[in-house]
């Protein structure tokens, strides 16, 4: 535990040194990045000890202003620290080699907030005290706010950061309330006291729904996701990688942590998570298909995966209620594995998007195309990540989705109508989500990296140093390793699962690990075989069979000889059939003139899509709140004597209250 705390402190202190040495760019860069490397590597050891070596680390008590708080690392914490450490390291490297050396105005502030974010998240997972938890949560949110707002010369980034701040604080109110209820029932802020507290069933439900609201904001639970796409889009890419891969996972951490405090999990919660997750996943993809900004697409896909994970957690809760431990175990394992896999994939996707942005200076998919030829490493990495994120074999996300599928299949073999409903939601829902995700990422991969460039924009590939490619290669290798060695992940993650359900008085049969590892082993072998055979066959084909190939022909143009790059299919045309099917959800608004005359004249076409949740729910709601609050504007007028009068009235009121009661 000492090592973990010193890692947190090292990252934090490194950030402070970077802040004060901001004038000397190199020094600041060195301290910021180096402390991050050091801290994340240090933190790996305790994580390994807890997760794999099954050691228990001694808790450390530290003094806080209100109470003393203890820090400890159990299996759940260690599991959630994993994405933070991996992405914290890789993104710091990416930042050190890209943003900061060249054009960063305030490298000091940049590193300070980056390190604060990482340190905040690490202390969040380690805190076993409500006060420390909320403090870390706030540090994390505020640091993330400053990182998003760092590009404040852009109006869009300012708006996104503001939206993030408002959303995350609305969420935090929920977290405050839920810990207030828990603490008053338990009579203390320590997490251990929460476990033993006797909660009424009603207040347990209130706590659960507050947690779903508070943490749901972070994970992007529909309709609380509206801050997410903009924040991820307008933050720098390596920041988005951390925000999406690690910070949004903190929402799951909070939710799971709160679930361990509650003595029983009601069936209703499971249904809410299951169908909420289903709606989140499908909605995210439908909206993502109308978006044309590469990073926005990736952001919505984060929301989609959050939906899948929530579905799995819901399945787990339901199966526990129905005394189906194997199904619950499979679902929870799938959820955890998916959290881990998604962190790797999303990190890679955002870093790829970042390196594309450096080369093209745009995020608009409509203006890209053919980048793959000049950036082969980025293209390959993005291709691997696209296959993985679409939940296709041979990569890791398929394996975690497979486990979730398996829990749905197992539920189908039960005989109650309820279990059939669960199974239908999981199977049909995941099927549709998988198909649409494949549509989304074939689009992004195909239209950004393949084909010919759609504009004359000059590619600035000199910006992409081999260092950047190094981060992409590392993460791609991690994805491949996580696919081939997936069976080895099951048993450490199973330990986390049993810790989640321990407070419910449920223990899973250790034989379950073997039960779910068996198919996973075969799938991993399939992955290995498919990858190897394809590589060998491609090698043989290119080396021996395609020797006399010609590669100077034009693409088939159907007799239309003067084809320009603009004749290619674009992002919006690619998703047009899908958008038409889902028009009632995405509310795609098309403006343009139809060609009426015989000869084509100048014409225009414009599509516009706003997130319905934002347009029809939050904007009206905030307008109403605004109207209400505007009534109080009269109180704030800048007249000092009236302010003093307010104070006097307040004091008087308090005095009267004291006298009367």
């Amino acid at each position, binding site marked *: 535990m000492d090592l973990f705390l010193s890692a947190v402190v090292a990252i934090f202190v490194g950030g402070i040194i970077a802040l004060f040495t901001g004038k000397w760019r190199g020094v600041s860069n060195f301290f910021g990045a180096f402390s991050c490397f050091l801290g994340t590597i240090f933190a790996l050891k305790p994580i390994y000890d807890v997760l794999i070596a099954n050691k228990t680390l001694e808790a450390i008590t530290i003094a806080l202003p209100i109470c003393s708080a203890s820090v400890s690392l159990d299996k759940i914490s260690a599991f959630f620290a994993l994405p933070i450490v991996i992405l914290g390291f890789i993104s710091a490297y990416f930042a050190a080699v890209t943003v900061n050396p060249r054009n960063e105005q305030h490298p000091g502030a940049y590193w300070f907030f980056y390190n604060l974010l990482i340190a905040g998240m690490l202390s969040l997972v380690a805190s076993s005290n409500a006060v420390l938890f909320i403090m870390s949560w706030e540090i994390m949110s505020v640091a993330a706010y400053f990182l998003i707002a760092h590009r404040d010369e852009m109006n869009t980034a300012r708006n996104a950061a503001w939206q993030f701040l408002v959303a995350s604080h609305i969420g935090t109110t929920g977290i405050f309330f839920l810990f207030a209820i828990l603490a008053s029932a338990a009579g203390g802020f320590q997490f251990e006291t929460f476990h033993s507290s006797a909660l009424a069933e009603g207040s347990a439900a209130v706590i659960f729904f507050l947690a779903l609201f508070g943490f749901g904001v972070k994970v992007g639970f529909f309709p609380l996701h509206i801050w997410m796409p903009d924040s991820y889009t307008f933050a720098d890419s390596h920041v988005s990688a951390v925000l999406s891969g690690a910070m949004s996972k903190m929402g799951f951490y909070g939710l799971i942590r709160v679930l361990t405090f509650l003595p029983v999990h009601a069936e209703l919660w499971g249904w809410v998570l299951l169908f909420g997750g289903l709606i989140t996943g499908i909605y995210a993809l439908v909206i993502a298909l109308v978006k044309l900004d590469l990073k926005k697409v990736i952001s919505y896909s984060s929301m989609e995966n959050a939906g899948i994970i929530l579905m799995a957690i819901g399945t787990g809760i339901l199966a526990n209620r129905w005394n189906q431990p194997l199904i619950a175990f499979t679902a929870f394992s799938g959820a955890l594995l998916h959290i881990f896999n998604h962190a790797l994939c999303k990190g890679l996707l955002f870093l790829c998007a970042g390196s594309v942005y450096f080369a093209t200076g745009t995020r608009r998919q409509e203006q890209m195309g053919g980048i793959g030829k000049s950036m082969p490493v980025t293209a390959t990495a993005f291709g691997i990540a696209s296959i993985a994120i679409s939940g296709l074999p041979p990569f890791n996300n398929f394996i975690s989705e497979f486990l979730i599928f398996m829990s749905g299949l197992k539920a189908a073999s039960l005989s109650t109508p309820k279990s*059939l409903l669960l199974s239908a939601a999981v199977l049909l829902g995941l099927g549709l989500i998988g*198909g649409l995700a494949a549509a989304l990422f074939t689009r992004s991969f195909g239209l950004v990296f393949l084909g010919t460039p759609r504009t004359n924009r000059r590619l600035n590939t000199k910006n992409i140093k081999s260092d950047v490619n190094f981060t992409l290669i590392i993460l791609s290798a991690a994805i491949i390793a996580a696919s081939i060695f997936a069976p080895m992940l099951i048993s450490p993650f199973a330990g986390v699962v049993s810790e989640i359900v321990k407070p419910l008085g449920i223990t899973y049969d250790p034989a379950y690990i073997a039960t779910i590892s068996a198919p996973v082993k075969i799938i991993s072998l399939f992955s290995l075989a498919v990858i190897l055979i394809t590589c060998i066959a491609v090698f043989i084909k290119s080396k021996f069979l395609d020797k006399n190939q010609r590669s100077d022909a034009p693409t088939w143009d159907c007799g239309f000889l003067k084809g320009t790059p603009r004749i290619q299919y674009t992002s919006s045309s690619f998703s047009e059939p899908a958008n038409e099917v889902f028009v009632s959800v995405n509310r795609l608004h098309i403006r343009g003139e139809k060609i009426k005359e015989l000869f084509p004249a100048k014409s225009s076409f414009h599509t516009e899509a706003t997130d319905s949740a934002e347009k029809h729910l939050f904007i009206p709601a905030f307008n109403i709140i605004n109207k209400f609050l505007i009534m109080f504007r009269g109180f704030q007028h800048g007249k000092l004597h009236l302010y003093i009068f307010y104070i006097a009235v307040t004091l008087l009121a308090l005095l009267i209250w004291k006298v009367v009661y």
Partner: protein
Amino acid sequence: MNITSIIFIIVSFLAAPILPGLINKTKALFGGRQGPRVLQLYYDIFKLARKTPTYSKTASALTRIAPVAIAVSTLAALTLVPSFFNNSAIHFTGDIILMAYLLGLGRFFMVTAALDRGSAFEGMGASREVLYSALAEPSFFAGLLIMIHETASLELSEIFSKLSLNFWQENPAILFLILCSWFVILLVENARIPIDDPNTHLELTMIHEVMILDYGAKDLALIEYASALKLWIYSALIVGMVINGEIITSLTMQIAIFTLGMAIVAFVIGTIESITARIKLVFIPKFIVGSGALAIIALILKVAGN
């Protein structure tokens, strides 16, 4: 892994290109023509395999990798298909998910390779393919769900072998609905009429064919072969669902019935192709969702029956 299942894989590997030949023969029969030979696809594949490929200037490495990847993933999916006596070479809990998604991997390569040439047309096919297959996925799993519910087993081969005669007699409607909805999926996934016309000559209306416009020689041979294999896999699933191990107990009978079943599937596809026209592109999503609705009706019947 037993010997019949390995023989099955080898037979499938060799015999898959017969199915399109049978379909074409059926269509020729309806059209009053003599039509191409049943084994025509073999001749085509061998002819193509001898040629050297020509690639577009725009094509990147993906165009060269994709045919191999498509063939490998389809072959990998084949190993999971139940054979005679409903054994499959490799079987495990949830194997059908892997099978469905391996075919999805092939589709991923097909679609992205189509976008690789920067063509004006190939994107059209790609964009339709991804949507239709995404919509077909839920109805595939809906049918599967009912069968799992009935047989309480999670392995494809076990599911098929446990669909007892009793169940067929008691719930013919449910099974018929699943059969219909899976058959529609077969038509969707294999680009057959009324979804897609493999013989069309207008790029604007193609789905599958338009994605492979720029392929020739060995690559086209691989893709044509993989398509035939995919058709074989889906047909074998439908036949496997119908063949009942309780009645037919000898291996020779199983093989005979299986062969007959595959021929019937090919004949039905050919008949549908002969007597129906393609539906308009805008109606295809409704058609696919409609087939999913059949499976969901079957599910409701099942629940109500309980």
